[in-house]
């Protein structure tokens, strides 16, 4: 899956990240993060250990730089030889599959959220390490906890390392002109805001094309904010429920207020449209703001940009999820303790805080004590991205985390369901029925 993706837009922002990182870095390191006094698990490192790690390639230079610095520190402190390979975002899943099937290859994989769940019988138990980290750093956020534990059990199978979240990115002055102080949480008022912004010539933009991140983001936000879900806890398909129909009707109304052309939007489209001031509001990761801050010619837009949680929350149940970086250790490793120690070392505040800070919160922390990290003091506007680990939903909600939940996303089943209703090609009932067929097929062996 390559071409221009969200990553390119992240790259554009990389310069900004570094520039600001230098400022933030001047603050006293990790002093702000509260740490409980807990003894680390007893994991004596094997003699002569050497481990190989793979993880996704960087979007932001600091991501790789700090990771490598921390790795050097680990090598110095323990004598364990570590090599990290950076793998393209789409390739990492295939490499994990090969490693799991052949029992060879990397010892440690920092992969995507669902990966450890697909190979839970091939990877080491992480309960002791995860509980230690949780106790020491104020507990795990609900989302990383969801992805760290085997579904429906208390057994940890992975160590979530970061959560890349989203938020509503909007122009404060244009939202104010439309008569709203900020983004309203009520869905009908939000629709009213979108109508008014459209009338004022600053419409909102929600990707409804086959965009891996943004298209699926739009679809799941619409579904979840109406109380819908694709499958129940056991994996039985629930997409034709009334909530879905409501969500589809709402989506069709919302679509009328959007900038034309969103049915063909791919991941970078909303970034481009927002930065060129064609849209006044769009949901996205922190990448848009990175770009705006990195270039002085966008200073005015950056100043007027605000971030908010997505509307439609019930209490603090925000209808959102985040992309979790989830690390696992394969059973086939010759050095299980060295591998676990490596993960522990990377997650300890001395190493984790610089990573978090210098990446400007690109990977939001999974451990709640880092809410207080100085990383989040630099710019109050990025605060919504801090809370990515508190999101209660996950891809494939409410079902078990499996290859099926990922496949529904990868095939854009929900995106197509919304797009066909928005474009008037199908009634909500027809669209939901069609989605049900495909989801049932994908889930036929899962659950």
């Amino acid at each position, binding site marked *: *899956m*390559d*071409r*221009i993706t969200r990553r390119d837009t992240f790259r554009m922002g990389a310069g900004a990240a570094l520039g600001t990182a230098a400022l933030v870095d001047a603050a006293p390191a990790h002093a702000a993060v509260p740490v409980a006094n807990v003894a680390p698990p007893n994991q004596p490192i094997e003699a002569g250990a050497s481990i190989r790690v793979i993880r996704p390639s960087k979007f932001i230079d600091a991501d790789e730089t700090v990771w490598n610095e921390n790795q050097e520190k680990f090598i110095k402190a323990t004598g364990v030889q570590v090599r990290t390979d950076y793998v393209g975002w*789409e390739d990492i*899943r*295939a490499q*994990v*599959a090969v490693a*799991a*099937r052949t029992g060879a290859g990397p010892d440690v994989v920092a992969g995507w959220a669902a990966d450890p769940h*697909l*190979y839970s019988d091939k990877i080491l138990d992480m309960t002791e390490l995860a509980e230690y980290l949780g106790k020491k750093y104020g507990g795990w956020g609900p989302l990383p906890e969801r992805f760290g534990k085997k579904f429906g059990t208390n057994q940890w199978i992975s160590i979530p390392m970061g959560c890349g979240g989203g938020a509503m990115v909007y122009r404060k002055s244009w939202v104010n002109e439309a008569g709203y102080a900020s983004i309203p949480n009520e869905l009908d008022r939000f629709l009213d805001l979108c109508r008014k912004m459209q009338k004022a010539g600053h419409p909102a933009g929600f990707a*409804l*094309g*086959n*965009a*891996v991140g943004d298209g699926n983001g739009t679809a799941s936000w619409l579904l979840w904010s109406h109380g819908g879900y694709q499958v129940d806890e056991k994996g039985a398909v629930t997409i034709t429920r009334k909530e879905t129909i409501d969500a589809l009707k709402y989506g069709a109304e919302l679509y009328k207020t959007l*900038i*034309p*052309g*969103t*049915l*063909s*939007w*791919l991941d970078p*489209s909303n970034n*481009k*449209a927002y930065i*060129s001031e*064609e849209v006044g509001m769009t949901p996205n990761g922190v990448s848009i703001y990175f770009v705006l801050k990195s270039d002085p010619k966008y200073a005015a837009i950056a100043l007027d940009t605000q971030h908010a949680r997505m509307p439609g929350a019930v209490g603090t149940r925000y209808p959102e999820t985040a992309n979790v970086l989830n690390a696992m250790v394969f059973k086939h490793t010759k050095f299980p303790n060295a591998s676990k120690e490596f993960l522990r070392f990377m997650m300890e505040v001395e190493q984790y805080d610089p990573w978090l800070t210098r990446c400007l919160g690109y990977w939001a922390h999974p451990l709640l004590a880092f809410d207080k990290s100085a990383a989040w003091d630099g710019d109050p506007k990025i605060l919504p991205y801090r809370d990515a680990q508190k999101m209660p939903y996950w891809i494939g909600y409410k079902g078990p985390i499996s*290859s099926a939940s*990922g*496949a529904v996303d*990868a*095939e*854009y089943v929900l*995106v*197509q369901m919304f*797009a*066909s209703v928005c*474009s008037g*090609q199908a009634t909500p009932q027809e669209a939901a029925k*069609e989605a049900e*067929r*495909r989801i049932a*097929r*994908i889930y036929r*062996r899962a659950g």
Partner: protein
Amino acid sequence: MDASTWVAKRPTPSALAQLFDNKAFLIAVCLFPAVGLLLVFLTYPLGLGIYLAFTDTEIGGNGHWIGLENFEYLLTDRIFINSVWNTMFYTFVATVGKFALGLWLALLLNHHIPFQSAIRAIILLPYIVPTVLSAIAFWWIYDPQFSIISYVVVDQLHLRDKYFDFLGEPWPARWSLIVANIWRGIPFVAITLLAGLQTISPSLYEAAMLDGASPWQQFRRITAPLLMPILAIVMTFSVLFTFTDFQLVYAITRGGPINSTHLMATLAFQRGIPGAQLGEGAAIAVAMIPFLIFATLFSYYALGNRKWQQGSDND
């Protein structure tokens, strides 16, 4: 010297030399690299692909033999049926377009014109640019907000008051992709047909002119029949490339909007690799094989017909 000491006996060749004298052995040795390459890199993957189509394999998991279940499901799958239809429509229209424009271009270039070789080199450009790059260029051209076409028509010429939505609706999206494919395919057709045109002896045209044949008659009676063999080959390749096109569609629309531009190749990839349904993806890919065989046979037998090549009244 005494000639009687000379013994007329050939020394027995070494075992190795004898071995290499053996015809059967020599055939086997000479064929081995070619057959080996074919087996490892063509037969095995193709066979594996066909096998996978009859299983429910997922990436990273073991599959079971499920017979025709994948195909039975696909026959009831609206998106798959659409993709078959799209693929045929896309292939047919794009091929006709490429040949009409390519032949026209080749005929023009066959005349003596100034800067002939420079122009021929320029014609090849779309073909030289990597497909993904030209796809990204078209993606920008078709962008709903930043299209150069919309900019010129709406902002400069004021002929419309709304931007074009090239990729936001099924039919405009299909036509947009076909235009991109034609643009990319013309050079291949034009240059190969030009090569074919240049093999036609000028004396034939001279003779025809002496007989008072019109340009249309010359084209109809000389150019067309003599061009037919190469046309058949070029057509076969062009149909195969268009039928299996992937990059343009995947980079520009990913099969959207609303799955209306999925080709069989993009659908097979989307379900097989990102969607991890390896078995079903393989089934879609296998379903392409009969179409490809048919297209190849059609080009060879229908267009390569000798009667046609040599003029209709020559058996």
